């Protein structure tokens, strides 16, 4: 094979790889991005079967456990949503504090969480929660963390 043909083949392969990578990236960004919603937006934005993140404050006195299943309510000051989670709650999960639940929701059911994220440490609140609380008028902290 001539050197020029070899070079053309290499460029063709490189272009094919790049096109494949760009396609995968665009498809991935379209399909596997997880949107964040506040409890008051849930009914409007949630589609059945699509993963979303729900963020807000855990309502005081709503945590119930049955075996490994934990149920609690999350609010942004406007709407209250029931969350169901089968598993270990994070160490920093507390009633009255911020939480982010990742999972799916369908009308008439509790939010089925597959993952529950709480604060990493006492100084840090998930930014999504801060935003939700500010918009719901529930933010009582000073400057946002």
């Amino acid at each position, binding site marked *: 094979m001539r050197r020029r043909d070899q070079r053309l083949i290499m460029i063709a392969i490189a272009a094919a790889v790049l096109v494949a990578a760009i396609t995968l990236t665009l498809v*991935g960004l379209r399909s*596997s991005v997880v949107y964040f919603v506040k409890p008051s937006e849930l009914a409007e934005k949630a589609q059945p079967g699509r993963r979303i993140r729900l963020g807000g404050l855990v309502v005081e006195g709503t945590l119930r456990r049955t075996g490994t299943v934990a149920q609690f309510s999350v609010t942004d000051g406007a709407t209250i949503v029931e969350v169901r989670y089968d598993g270990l709650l994070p160490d920093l999960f507390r009633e009255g504090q911020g939480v982010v639940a990742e999972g799916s929701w369908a009308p008439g059911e509790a939010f089925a969480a597959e993952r529950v994220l709480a604060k*990493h440490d*006492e100084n840090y609140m998930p930014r999504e929660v801060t935003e939700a609380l500010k918009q719901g008028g529930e933010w009582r902290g000073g400057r946002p963390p």
Partner: protein
Amino acid sequence: MITEIGAFAAALALALSVLQGALGIALPRSDANSAAMRVAALAGAMLVAIAFAALVVAFVRSDFSLAVVVGHSHTDKPLMYKIAGAWGNHEGSMLLWCLVSAVFAAALAWRRGAQDEGLWRRAVGVQGLVTAGALIYTLFLSNPFARLDPAPMQGSGLNPLLQDPALAAHPPMLYLGYVGLSVPFSLALAALIEGRADQNWAKALRPWTLAAWTCLTLGIGLGSYWAYYELGWGGWWFWDPVENASFMPWLAACALVHSAIVTERRGSFAGWTILLAIIGFGLALLGTFLVRSGVLTSVHAFAVDPRRGIAVLVLLALALGAGFGLYGWRARTLGRASGFAAVSRESMLLWNNYGLAVAAGIVLIGTLYPMLVEAFGGGLISVGPPFFNATVAPLLAALFLVLPFGPMLTWRVGDLAAAARALWPALAAAVVTLTATLIASHGRAAPALGLAIGVWLVAGGLVYLRVRLRRGEGGPLRKLALLPLAVWSMSAAHIGAGVLTIGAVGETGFRSERAAALTPGESIDFAGRRVTLLDIGAVEGPNYSATRADFRVERGGEIRTVSAERRFYPTAAAPTTEVGILSDLDGDLYLALGEPAERGSAAWIVRLYYNPLVQFIFYGVLLMALGGALSLTALLRRRSEP
């Protein structure tokens, strides 16, 4: 008093590093100026070392007149974590950044080797400016020596999650890697300023790149290992933006390690190597920006001052602006390409670089996309593992498919048929793995392919070793002893990549988890093991109290015990999880203790994970780092020879 000495030393070091930059870049070339530049670099490094030592002393003595000590230390903390506390916070870690940069500048200044003098003094000068930039940022925007008046009696303690040996070593390792990439950057800028890059220049570049890559590998590995056993989520990599921030420079460094070989051996790719060195350091700075600016929410993001984020962005813009500007102006003068065929060692290294660069680009897009969407009012989103698994994994798989051919091919024109013939045992091993996994997992194609690719890499590395051994002379032992270090290092790194792939695919594809409420004496069958909760009780540690659960694990007649804890640090007012891990060859049983199942009940929630092959991940990382270290040894040994 010691604190004042530290602050003064850092300020003096700033002046010296600016002087070093001026002597290397702006002032005329003379022996006197070069000698002065060397002295400035050495004195600067010593002064930053004094400043850093002063900070460590303040932490050891629990000097609560310093704001950082108050924020991140406590008198009850074990000594090791008092010392580690010096870099377990934003201000101290930035001073560490300066220290590493200054020490590297001194090393660059005093080890000229065979480098061309013009290129060498430019590089030392640029490195001085890098140190100066870091020192300006540290002293003016995150001063670790800031006082608190009146001084409180007690500090608020270090986050208990961070009180861990792996995490004490994680930041220094990562910083050695990040800042290590500043030296290739300085060398690249030196080549652009002078408008030439020779093979001695590439020879000087390689050890720095390798050292940076090795430290990044170890630093990321330590962080991942820590996340695995400390966070209690059973995972080791979450595609968290903070992890991506370190993964992108790693990918660039990995590409640079390979392209520098071509530039040194064949004289080609010089322009690309220079561009890659600029991009690599740019990504390291971007990583620092993402982690330190507070644009990300994570355990790492402790800088909440927006000025700091902007300052890092300014430094990033300066570095990239100078780099790309010079590149655009000078790149054409560098050209000295030597030809190569589509099947050759050069073309394989080109594919390596292409694959790694595209991978870094994808990770960059996935990491920045949520920020862009938010900035344009598109709401809050997160890009997580599904995106990266669907994009980066296939790309790396394609790269790994061709990888074993690389070492088998010769420079200029390679013999593909001969390489394929030599590699057939590796192909056979991969096909057997593929078939066996497909049958055992009832046709799950993706993990089966992943495992097969991992085996292909490991077997391909072994085939290469065998081919090189056969080429030697004398008896088997003599052949083994005469094998060049470079062959060992390349094999170790490539086999390590395979071992890591096997672990990552095994864990991601075949893990299982389950939550259970257990009362003492109760058993559960999980992943071929019978797990019994023996007892739950309170224990006291040096600076915490804990609830401990003891488990008995029965597997095929073999009985072992393991315990898991929930620890309460009074300084933190929040519990942490200490998981129990039982490692076997096939994988880990991983137990995390939760809370009582219901009020008043004796049952506790326990989360059980089975993480198959997970230890392979960490062995793979160690093998890759070993490969880097061996290669570094080979290069330094070669350099010291006449």
